[in-house]
């Protein structure tokens, strides 16, 4: 195996890991702080994609659409959802699951009714390719790796330095505190849900040039992001990143060896095995005091 292939393959695997992290972080934030699994997570990603496509086609600079407009718009939607729906269901975990699933269907239906069931006008990836010897790698994929790292860093600093972060750390380590919080500081929950939604919208916006947008595109993400977050456990960053590394790594290597279908099976089996060994996720056993 020549060196260029190793580098190209390495980049591919790292991109896979970064991609998993990117699509899972929004879900992880909401789960870590509120112990709520948001089944409309995929639709938040979808909405991010639509926001970017629409605003770019309306003449907004594509970078501004992706980096600012998408997270802000979806973040606001997240806050609205929390106020109108989620807050009635605190302490009723299963009902929250069901209600967010209803929301997921509702959003798919709404977007289909407005924009139609087929692909909306797509936008082209704004960067070219980078060549490594005989192999090429998309520059945009490299950029996504960089942005994911930066995003993790921002979340790390937010958790480390701000008051919201302090509360977040408390709830991550103590489940009772998370449930007690719902009563004492509903504002924190509102902000958390909005923040998580914004991150999901951000991810959706960034991925829109790669995947295009469809009302049902959320479905393509949710299975993977659920597995990642559940395997990671309740600690937001350490959990998501470590689970992404394990699952993305397994998926990347097996996909390279046997093709994408078996790669996906391997990802599932890795996740099931992981959960059998650690029912509370990786951070249920390791990095418990992490961020």
């Amino acid at each position: 195996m020549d060196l260029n292939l190793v580098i190209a393959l390495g980049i591919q695997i790292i991109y896979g890991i970064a991609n998993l992290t990117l699509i899972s972080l929004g879900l992880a934030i909401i789960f870590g702080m509120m112990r709520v699994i948001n089944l409309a997570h995929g639709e938040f990603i979808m909405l991010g994609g639509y926001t970017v496509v629409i605003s770019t086609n309306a003449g907004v600079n594509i970078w501004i659409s992706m980096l600012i407009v998408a997270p802000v718009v979806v973040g606001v939607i997240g806050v609205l959802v929390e106020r109108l729906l989620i807050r009635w269901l605190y302490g009723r975990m299963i009902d929250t699951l069901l209600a967010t699933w209803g929301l997921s269907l509702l959003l798919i239906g709404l977007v289909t009714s407005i924009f139609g069931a087929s692909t909306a006008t797509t936008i082209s990836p704004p960067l070219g390719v980078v060549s490594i010897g005989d192999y090429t790698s998309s520059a945009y994929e490299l950029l996504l790796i960089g942005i994911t790292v930066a995003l993790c860093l921002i979340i790390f600093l937010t958790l480390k330095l701000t008051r919201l972060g302090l509360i977040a750390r408390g709830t991550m380590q103590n489940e009772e505190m998370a449930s007690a919080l719902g009563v004492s500081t509903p504002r924190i929950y509102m902000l958390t849900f909005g923040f998580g939604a914004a991150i999901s919208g951000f991810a959706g916006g960034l991925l829109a040039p790669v995947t295009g947008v469809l009302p049902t595109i959320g479905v393509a993400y949710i299975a993977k992001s659920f597995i990642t977050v559940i395997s990671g456990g309740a600690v937001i960053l350490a959990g998501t990143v470590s689970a992404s590394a394990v699952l993305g790594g397994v998926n990347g290597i097996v996909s390279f060896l046997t093709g994408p279908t078996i790669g996906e099976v391997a990802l599932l089996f890795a996740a099931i095995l992981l959960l059998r060994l650690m029912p509370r996720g990786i951070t249920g056993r390791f990095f418990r005091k992490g961020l």
Partner: protein
Amino acid sequence: MTIFRDMRATFTIAVIGILFMVLAPTVLELFAIINLTTAIALAMLALSLALVWGYGGILCFGQTAFFGVGAYAYTVAAINSGDAATAILIAVVVAIIFASVLGYFMFYGRVSDVYLAVITLTVSLILFSLIRRTSGPEYKIGDALLGGFNGVTAPPLNLPWDRAYFLFPEHVFYVAMAFLIIAYVFTAWLVRTKFGRVVISIKENELRAELLGYDIRLYKLLIFMIGAAIAGLGGVLFCNGVGRVTPDVFNLYNSALTIIWVIVGGRGTLIGPVLGAFGIFYLTSALGTQSTINNNLILGIILIIFVLAIPKGLVPTVRDWMIERKDRRIQRVRERRIRTRRTRSSTQNAEGAGE
């Protein structure tokens, strides 16, 4: 919920079901009967989740996985063996084995309910994306090509003693309805046995059931496997109703539908989710013929409304309302009787005073 119940209501419902089975083909057209067979298959799936979730408390969001596995196993087995009876048996066994492996991991790993919901849902979605990719000629089990996105044509049911005799759609309807009635009576009986009562008690309080000495992991695994068998059988009926099986049986929309049937019909009843499945099936069929309102939109709204406003579901809500009304009537009758007695005695007193 109560575990001491008799079977009277069950038999009444079963008799109504049998009457329906006999009468429906005489009034309905063939197209409606074929449609009805599909609805019955879905009702079977609803019944399986009513048992697993409503009685077992197992939050299985991916019950369609067993439904789809049953449908695929039947189709592949029927293509290879040419005998529907064997294929049905294989389908049910495959669904049970699949559930036992998945269930072993979840219950013996003591995965909590929310995790369980997400894992089962994910399994279903992974099956969806996997089977979608099997369009090439290399994806072949015996003589059966899996066909990827387009799925496989399901061979129709034939008679066990005469493989060349394929059943007509009305006969498939009779078979489907008979299976549904049997499955309904069986599950209603099951939840009244010791096994069923323990399963209900585990839903009520896991720790207490365990402290009484019941191995809750085993009970959960068993009820999960029984549910999978019923769902798998539903899958068999489904691919006979629509004539083929596609990866769409595993998609998110169908998983959501299953949950909605149970929520709308009510957890803790068996007939509720069955009626829920029929109701939603005909609602979505009616909506499907027009294009202004999207099905997803309607289902999403129904789910949210039920979670927020009618969390118990229709059948328990109506039942509670009727019990309350009956209680109130009894109360009223009693009060009236007391009042008349009092008036009578006061009149007597008055008469006595007049003397």
